[in-house]
């Protein structure tokens, strides 16, 4: 296809991506170098019967005017990246110098907002992904054995946790684990502890979020494995059977090697998806015990305490994008090789 024709077909799509993905990334990078102007103070003389005192007062009019004139704020360099809410270089070096043992040092670091979010995001990503693969694999094996007339409805039900809106799915589970809800109440009965609450302790909140993540994503790996199972070569299976392989050996030596490329595909997709974990934290109201990188961006932009922290959100966004690029390197290399093989 000549260049001209190619351009005339692709320009609307390319323009959309340029304006609303590429340009915003630049804008995020620029914003992350600025902070909002500090409030303008004026000295006011207060004269009373006992003489005059000078006090500092916030000039809200001048502050508003300054902020309106320069909405980006003032240049801050890498200051936002290094402050306490992001990479916290000063706090870390201080914690390192005053450390008594490694555990104390680690717990100090994990109390800093960025590292707290990073630790949950990574834990979530790397715990949910393997569980999703294992659960999906076994569901696919089990569904594959069913007679065909109930396969359809079974697949329908199995798809539901994935199709449903993440925020809504997490709310539904959140209501069920409520101390007065179905699961929460039953757990209290089982452990005979009327004060047991999945929302109270950080560890239990992490477990709950991870269980939600597995519930939500397992259908994806199930569907991919199920499709893969349809293409397992029948001859190989039969010859394995004739050679005396039992059910497990057939799965171990024929089915699993056949599905291995799919495992790579699913884990790459899941790593990308789970790294952006956000909605369940809002749905489970879990921000006291678990935050993620996406959540702290949301929290900065929501402007819960009056003003939106553009610089802070932009710095976290850029750090997150760098994280995604690191996670994505294997995919890119793989696509590169695949294309090279085709060309």
């Amino acid at each position, binding site marked *: *296809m000549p*260049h001209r*024709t*190619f351009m005339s*077909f*692709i320009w*609307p*799509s*390319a323009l*959309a*991506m340029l304006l*609303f*993905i590429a340009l*915003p990334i630049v*804008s995020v990078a620029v*914003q992350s170098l600025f902070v909002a102007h500090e409030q303008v103070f004026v000295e006011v003389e207060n004269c009373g019967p006992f003489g005059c005192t000078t006090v500092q007062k916030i000039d809200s009019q001048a502050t508003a005017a300054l902020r309106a004139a320069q*909405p980006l704020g003032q240049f801050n360099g890498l200051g936002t990246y290094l402050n306490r809410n992001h990479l916290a270089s000063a706090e870390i070096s201080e914690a390192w110098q005053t450390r008594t043992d490694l555990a104390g040092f680690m717990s100090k670091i994990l109390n800093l907002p960025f590292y707290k979010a990073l630790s949950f995001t990574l834990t979530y990503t790397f715990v949910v992904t393997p569980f999703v693969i294992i659960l999906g694999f*076994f569901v696919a094996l*089990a*569904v594959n*054995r069913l007679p065909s007339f109930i396969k359809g409805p079974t*697949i329908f*039900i199995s798809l*539901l946790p994935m*199709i*449903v*809106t*993440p*925020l*809504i799915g997490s*709310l*539904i589970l959140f*209501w*069920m684990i*409520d101390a007065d809800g*179905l699961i929460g*109440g039953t757990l209290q009965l089982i452990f005979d502890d009327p004060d047991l609450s999945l929302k109270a302790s950080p560890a239990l909140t992490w477990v709950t979020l991870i269980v939600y993540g597995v519930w939500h994503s397992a259908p994806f790996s199930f*569907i991919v494995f199920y*499709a893969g199972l349809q293409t397992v070569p029948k001859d190989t299976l039969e010859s394995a*059977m004739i050679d005396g392989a039992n*059910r497990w050996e057939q799965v171990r030596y024929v089915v699993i090697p056949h599905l291995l490329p799919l495992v790579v595909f*699913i884990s790459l*997709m899941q790593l990308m998806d789970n*790294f952006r974990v*956000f*909605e369940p934290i*809002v749905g489970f*109201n879990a921000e006291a015990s678990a935050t993620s990188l*996406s959540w702290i*961006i949301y929290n900065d*932009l*929501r402007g819960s305490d009056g003003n939106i922290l*553009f610089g802070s959100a932009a710095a976290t*966004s850029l750090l*997150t994008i760098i994280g*995604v690029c690191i996670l*994505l390197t294997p*995919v*890119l290399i793989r*696509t590169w090789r695949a294309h090279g093989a085709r060309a």
Partner: protein
Amino acid sequence: MTIVASLKRPSFLSIAAMAFLVIWLAIAAVPFLWTLWGSFKVQADFFSKQDWQNALYGVFTLAETGGYFTGNGYEGAWIKEEFWRSSVNTMLMTLSVVAISLTLGTLGGYALSRSGYRYAFWVLIIALVFRAMPHITLVSGYLLPFFQLNLYGHLGTTIVVMVAINQPFTLWMLHSFFQNIPKDLDESAMVDGCTRFQAFRYVIIPVMWPGVITTGLFSFLLAYNDFALTGLLLSQENQTMVPKIASFLGSAQEEGNVMYAVSAVVSATAPLFILVMFFQRQIVSGLTAGAVKG
């Protein structure tokens, strides 16, 4: 004889597999059934302090409203809290996003699948990187310009943003569908004197619908399920269903109107169920398209 015997599956394994499957189906379906059933009860039953079975039988629902089922939650959400407005917004947004994304995506995906040059590959790689980025990382890039240009909060702005964010995925998906349509088809049309665009219009468009429908379903799901963008880019009166439900949580908990949120959640889930029911085959084929191609 031995082969026949070994073909018969051991019964223990079948039973274990069946039990496992039943447990999985329960885990997948019960939360939805529970919430659907509970949405017709009062709060004292849905969050029952004494006995979870109250939610099944509706003890307090009978005492408070005189019937075993009540539509109070739905009435409160849809009429009092104006959830109908959000559902109209959601409908407008998802339909526009799907229509515009597919139009741009089919043109772009077709060009990418037919261009033999190296830059087409680079466009796809860049699209892959864009697709992997969490959408929320872009929001701070939008907000400041939108405030300045007075674009913040409108449904139209969010539609345009959503279309753009949807493009990388749409391009990849349609690109792989178009690659499965033989090149000879449009090339022979061009030999017969069609321009490239005519070949696309009269030869490719009539055969591309299966791929377009599948891609459209996923664009729909992305727009419908989004919270990161809609939660931050829409003003209060333009909210779609998902951010509206999130805003119920802040206010509803105190007023004791959690049931509004429960009913709204059920209302927002219903269209998704219907969608899966009718398009199950396309959704499955779309999910596996990337995997099968490797």
